[in-house]
């Protein structure tokens, strides 16, 4: 995941950009899965400059989930079904923005389409790693449980999918 295909930029590294007015900055907010279990905390916002919007939340995964991942791997190793083996220090994963809900009142990000077992199976990365499009595609396919989505290796049209859907979940102007 050190490919230089830069579809994604950490908002922090784009000094000329910021979260737009009337949208919330969820960095630092807790992330909970469909079972109300804490997954981790939003560390960064990954943006697509052309779309001028956040397309993924970069989440620093909770230690307990990492432990579960190990247990899941060890328990099922005999069955040989796991695609990824996460290394030590790889404690970040991404969530497509369209699969997250923002609870502004409680400063919380939730996702009711992904549970902790799904998260535990997702290939993680180290903080600061550059993410290539192949990785993005694998993650989204895993979350969706469908290996056939977006058959093209081209990023074109990818962020128009429902997983990144644009619902104008805007904050009320004050």
């Amino acid at each position: 995941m050190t490919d230089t295909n830069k579809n994604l930029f950490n908002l922090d590294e784009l000094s000329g950009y910021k979260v737009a007015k009337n949208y919330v900055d969820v960095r630092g907010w807790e992330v909970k899965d469909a079972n109300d279990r804490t997954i981790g905390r939003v560390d960064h916002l990954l943006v697509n400059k052309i779309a001028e919007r956040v397309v993924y939340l970069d989440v620093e995964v909770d230690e307990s989930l990492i432990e579960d991942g190990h247990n899941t791997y060890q328990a099922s190793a005999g069955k040989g079904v796991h695609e990824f083996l996460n290394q030590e220090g790889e404690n970040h994963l991404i969530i497509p923005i369209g699969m997250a809900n923002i609870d502004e009142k409680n400063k919380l990000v939730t996702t009711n389409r992904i549970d902790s077992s799904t998260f535990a199976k997702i290939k993680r990365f180290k903080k600061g790693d550059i993410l290539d499009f192949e990785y993005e595609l694998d993650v989204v396919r895993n979350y969706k449980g469908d290996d056939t989505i977006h058959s093209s290796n081209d990023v074109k049209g990818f962020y128009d999918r429902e997983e990144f859907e644009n619902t104008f979940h805007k904050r009320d102007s004050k």
Partner: protein
Amino acid sequence: MAEIRIEQRKQIWPWVIAGLVIVALLVFFLVLRNNGGKTAEVTAEVAESSYITDTNEPDLSGVKENNGTIAAYVNFVEDSRGKMGLDHAYTNEALLKLIEATNAKANEVGYEIRADIEKVKEYAEMITIDPYETTHANNIRKASDILTNVLENIQLARYPGLTAEVDELKSASASINPEVLTLKQKGAVKNYFDKASDLLQKMN
């Protein structure tokens, strides 16, 4: 389903730079204008002080410049020291030589006294028109006052050590009574030329 849009930050630097440029221009023009005014004032002051008392110049009392025109006047006065006779021709010639000597000294030290010289020459001219004119003493006095004033300015500016000589010259000039016939105050007139000669000799 969330969405977080991003936007470009408003660039502050161009505004900051523009502001600094405007401030710099304002300061530049204000300072320049003030300096311009001050320069004009200073120039005027310098011009004035140069004319009256340019004490920054070194004391030239000890410097022997041997100006020929001054020497001519000094010699003329010296030659006539022993002579008691005084006529209008002598007065006129002495005055003209004193005018030339004063003018030469003024030119030497860089002072513009053309207007004064013209006026004094007119008085000198008047003396020769009618030898019996009773206003000659008045004209001599006016001429001596002007020349004394010029010499005093030169002394103040360049020869601060010759104050006593200038005081004597002023006193000699004041001794010429404009109401009295010149022939009746030969001594005062001659004394004035002598004092002017002493002063110029020391300046020369």
